[in-house]
């Protein structure tokens, strides 16, 4: 009796593993086919599986695709899961495709992208106001490269911009929440006070007969 129950239990476990492996294979196929990251919910809908089974299958896949085991890696990026090439094969890929995967950003493009990433949706005049210089060409090239996209218009009719999933993918981010708080780059209160003092002195020096002196 007990031995039969044991057998039964064993068989069940085996069946369960088989199902999990089959699910992992399905997910692997879906990830291979999709050019965009797939969210766990999308995978569950497509594979007709429960969320917890998807999570288990993804964990299994993650082991199989652990760095150093395959030419691809399972990455969680841009709000979903995707397969990415192993950086170790980049040299070979570069020879095959004869160009780098993504050109580096110019300082103007990086600043514009940072402003869009933190303040989105944000309009071009706003970007220009913060940077102190125009952002037309930087915005255009970021649009071209698919890192930002239009997101409606402001109340004044200017186009608003936001970052894309492509941005998250290329920068290795799961979501925008992974961006550090922008306040961490603020100068210390002491530095700020010094800066303010310098600005004031400069202003007084320029208008010699300012109201304070009068």
């Amino acid at each position: 009796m007990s031995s039969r129950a044991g057998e039964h239990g064993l068989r069940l476990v085996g069946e369960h593993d088989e199902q999990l492996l089959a699910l992992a294979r399905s997910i692997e196929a879906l990830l291979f086919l999709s050019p965009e990251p797939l969210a766990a919910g999308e995978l569950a809908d497509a594979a007709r599986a429960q969320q917890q089974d998807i999570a288990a299958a993804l964990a299994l896949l993650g082991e199989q695709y652990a760095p150093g085991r395959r030419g691809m890696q399972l990455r969680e990026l841009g709000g979903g899961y995707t397969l990415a090439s192993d950086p170790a094969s980049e040299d070979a890929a570069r020879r095959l495709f004869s160009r780098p995967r993504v050109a580096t950003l110019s300082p103007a493009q990086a600043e514009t992208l940072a402003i869009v990433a933190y303040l989105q949706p944000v309009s071009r005049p706003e970007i220009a106001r913060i940077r102190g210089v125009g952002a037309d060409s930087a915005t255009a090239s970021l649009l071209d490269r698919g890192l930002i996209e239009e997101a409606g218009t402001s109340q004044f009719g200017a186009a608003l911009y936001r970052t894309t999933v492509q941005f998250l993918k290329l920068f290795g981010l799961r979501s925008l929440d992974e961006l550090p708080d922008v306040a961490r780059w603020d100068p210390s209160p002491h530095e700020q006070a010094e800066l303010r003092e310098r600005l004031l002195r400069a202003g007084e020096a320029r208008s010699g007969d300012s109201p304070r002196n009068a």
Partner: protein
Amino acid sequence: MTGAASRHDVADAGAPQTSLTALELDLDVFSGPFDLLLALVLREEVDLLELQLADVVLGYLDHLERRGELDLEVATEFIVLVAALLELKSRLMLGPEDEQLLDIEPEQAAEELLARMLDARRYRAAAAHLRQLLAAEDGVRFREVPLPAQLRKTIVPAPEGSHDPALLGAAVGRLLTMPAAIDVRHIAVARVSIAERLAHLRDLLRRGSFSFNEAVAGVDRMTVAVTLFALLELYKRGEADWEQRECFGEIAVRALVSAPVDGEARTDVAATVRAADVAPRPEAPAHGDALDESHPPLAAAGTGGAR
């Protein structure tokens, strides 16, 4: 404004009844015709800032109502004038720009500048961070191909009655392709010329007569047919005549004995030359050409005549 005023004068002269001169205004700072008000404003005798332009417009509307008709020319002119007055007034109210800038205290200006500098500094640092992130991901690639059409979630069906354009292309392509030349090397081409059979018949004719069967003994059907053409040619040229007593019977061919006189012979030559020109000639015989053909009849007739 002077331009508008002169245009106004023209309208005045053209239609005094409907012109703006008829517009009498009764305002706080001014009472009188609209024209006069304009002139006073331009000479700065009435302060534009104290003038309620809305009242002027209301006065004009009252004026229109009293008249009971709308002259579009005058109405347009009025709108242009009031718009110009509005622009003048708004400029007076705003005052020169540099005066406004002086209103800001140096502390306030410094604070604003500081806030902007901090913003710029903040996002410059954020930009550096983003570039680091990008560099850390160097060498990671993704599939970037668009999904093939058949794998997309919605497949738009082709409208009814439409076909793959490739089908049309293939159909036209077939029409435009030259068919391969048919290989006829296996067909033995019978090389029988009328000239050759003519010579053969004339040889036989030297005996005076012969039967057609004799002329075509042991030759193939093509040669029989060509020989018959040659015989018809001889008949046409008057060299031979024939007789067949019954259907499918023996055809007896005999040479025409009447030797033509010189004059007749000459016309005959001309006739035969023309006949030879139009005679069926499947291919040029190795011996003799069209002109050569014309001479033998004379010789044949000569021999015939000699007999």
